[in-house]
């Protein structure tokens, strides 16, 4: 018995080091708990701040477009519609563009050097501050697309989305600038997850006579889907929350219109525009709108997770 104990006695790390271990573990626990605490804190604060508005307007807040601080009437439908339509349409354009780019730079259609240059340029796009993009959108993109918008209105005016005369600030411009901002997110994450698909799966597909086309769309993409979806979700979060560039270009009008060619509003741009001079029930209504924004992205997140579970190939 005595002999066996020496085994333990000789271990010097028994004292201080072990205490350090415990301290480290607990510090890590506390620090990582902060994430959860902060998240819960934000949700609670937003919820309680919006309570006044919530009890006064209830769900009517979500479906009316009246926003009149003088008469104390608030409805966020325009902003909610604007948020949904800008983020989903911008994603709709970004996903094929971004995933397509990712496929292009992970396959060997062109020499590696070219692919790497394209890849790093796409990533550099993410480094441009959104206020710069907003400025660019106002002074370069808008004049560039003006004729195209007129064309859209003239030929597709029967579609509600293009039913008004294009104005120089409108939702469609916001969608286009969002595409520029989302593209690097979707592309770089899609590229990483495509690269992570094991080579042996590609071999397997080619080995049974699959064309490159078939290999990419039936094997490689489904196997990378969960990663790509994660990128899309991140992009969606960005699209819903993006404030600066959108506020600069969207026109900030609470008058509801289905048309993308007329000025619109998003929840984020509404918050940015109004928090300064808001008081009383307007503050509460803004918090209510913020709460709606959080719920929206939560719902979209859960839906997307379900989609990924359903369609991705697990390797």
């Amino acid at each position, binding site marked *: 018995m005595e002999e066996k104990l020496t085994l333990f006695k000789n271990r010097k790390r028994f004292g201080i080091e072990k205490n350090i271990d415990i301290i480290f573990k607990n510090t890590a626990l506390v620090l990582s708990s902060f994430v959860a605490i902060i998240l819960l804190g934000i949700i609670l604060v937003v919820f309680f701040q919006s309570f006044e508005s919530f009890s006064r307007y209830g769900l009517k807040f979500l479906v009316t477009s009246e926003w009149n601080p003088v008469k104390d009437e608030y409805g966020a439908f325009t902003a909610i519609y604007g948020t949904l339509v800008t983020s989903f349409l911008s994603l709709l354009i970004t996903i094929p563009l971004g995933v397509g780019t990712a496929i292009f730079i992970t396959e*060997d259609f062109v020499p*590696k050097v070219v692919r790497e240059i394209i890849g790093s340029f796409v990533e550099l796009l993410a480094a441009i501050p959104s206020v710069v993009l907003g400025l660019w959108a106002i002074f370069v993109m808008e004049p560039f697309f003006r004729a195209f918008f007129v064309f859209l209105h003239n030929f597709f005016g029967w579609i509600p989305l293009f039913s008004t005369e294009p104005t120089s600030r409108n939702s469609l411009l916001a969608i286009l600038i969002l595409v520029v901002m989302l593209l690097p997110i979707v592309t770089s994450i899609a590229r990483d997850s495509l690269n992570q698909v*094991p080579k*042996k*799966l*590609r*071999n*397997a*597909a*080619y*080995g*049974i*006579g*699959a*064309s490159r086309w*078939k290999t990419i769309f*039936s*094997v490689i993409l*489904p*196997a990378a889907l969960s990663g790509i979806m994660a990128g899309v979700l991140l992009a969606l979060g960005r699209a819903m929350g993006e404030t600066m560039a959108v506020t600069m270009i969207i026109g900030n009008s609470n008058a509801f219109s289905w048309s993308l060619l007329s000025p619109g509003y998003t929840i984020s741009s509404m918050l940015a525009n109004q928090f300064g001079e808001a008081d009383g029930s307007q503050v509460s209504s803004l918090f209510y709108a913020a709460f709606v924004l959080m719920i929206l992205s939560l719902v979209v997140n859960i839906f997307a997770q379900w989609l990924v579970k359903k369609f991705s*190939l*697990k*390797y």
Partner: protein
Amino acid sequence: MIKTNKKTQKNIILSLENVSISYGTFEAVRNVFCNFKKGNITSLIGPSGCGKSTVLRSLNRMNDLIPNCSLKGTVLFDGTNIYDKRVDPIEVRRRIGMVFQQPNPFPKSIYENIAFGARINGFAGDMDELVESSLRKAALWDECKDKLNDSGYSLSGGQQQRLCIARTIAIEPEIILMDEPCSALDPISTLKIEETMHELKKNYTIIIVTHNMQQALRVSDMTAFFNAIEYEDGDSGKVGYLAEFSSTKKIFNSPKEKTTQEYISGKFG
């Protein structure tokens, strides 16, 4: 070296004529002449780095997927050079299937693993029947007939490899290439695969790369021994070549070349 007139040999399904394969400037194998007979199992053996896998992968143009890989010479399949510009590599791979070193089922159900290849190759018959017959030929049917909808990854390594064989059979190739199909498997699974190969021999030509000489002896009719030598032009790298090609019996009992004798008796490798 075997340099026979191809017209006089009717049973030749695949022949290499003066094939050299390089990766960039590095030459992996040089001047290979070799004829594979229809309905035979041919083993490619040799020490590491002798280029036997490279040769195998060149037979259905899988090497096309490796950047910088280039081939000189001709590979005749049914009298056509598969490296001819007009030849579609996808069609080549459909008629010359491949089983890889690592079992690589698709991350789909067992059923889909087999149906996928058949479907993309335009199979229009009864899919259930094809799945069953392919699995039977690969000696896997009894083990997985009740769980066809489970993921291919739910199978053991040996079963996965037989699933890959079944998947290859399902596209009805004329030749099946196997690149060390048992190197990741336990002895029992290995024996099962070998039994499967004996069954397959009735309908298919099989070319197999193996590190296991006992396996070559057990399964193959013909054996090609590849070796690697130093560049004669003083370069530091080694280049592979076909040292001896003969019936398996001859290679193992009375090899002509001294290096073959040394390799099969385990003096190097």
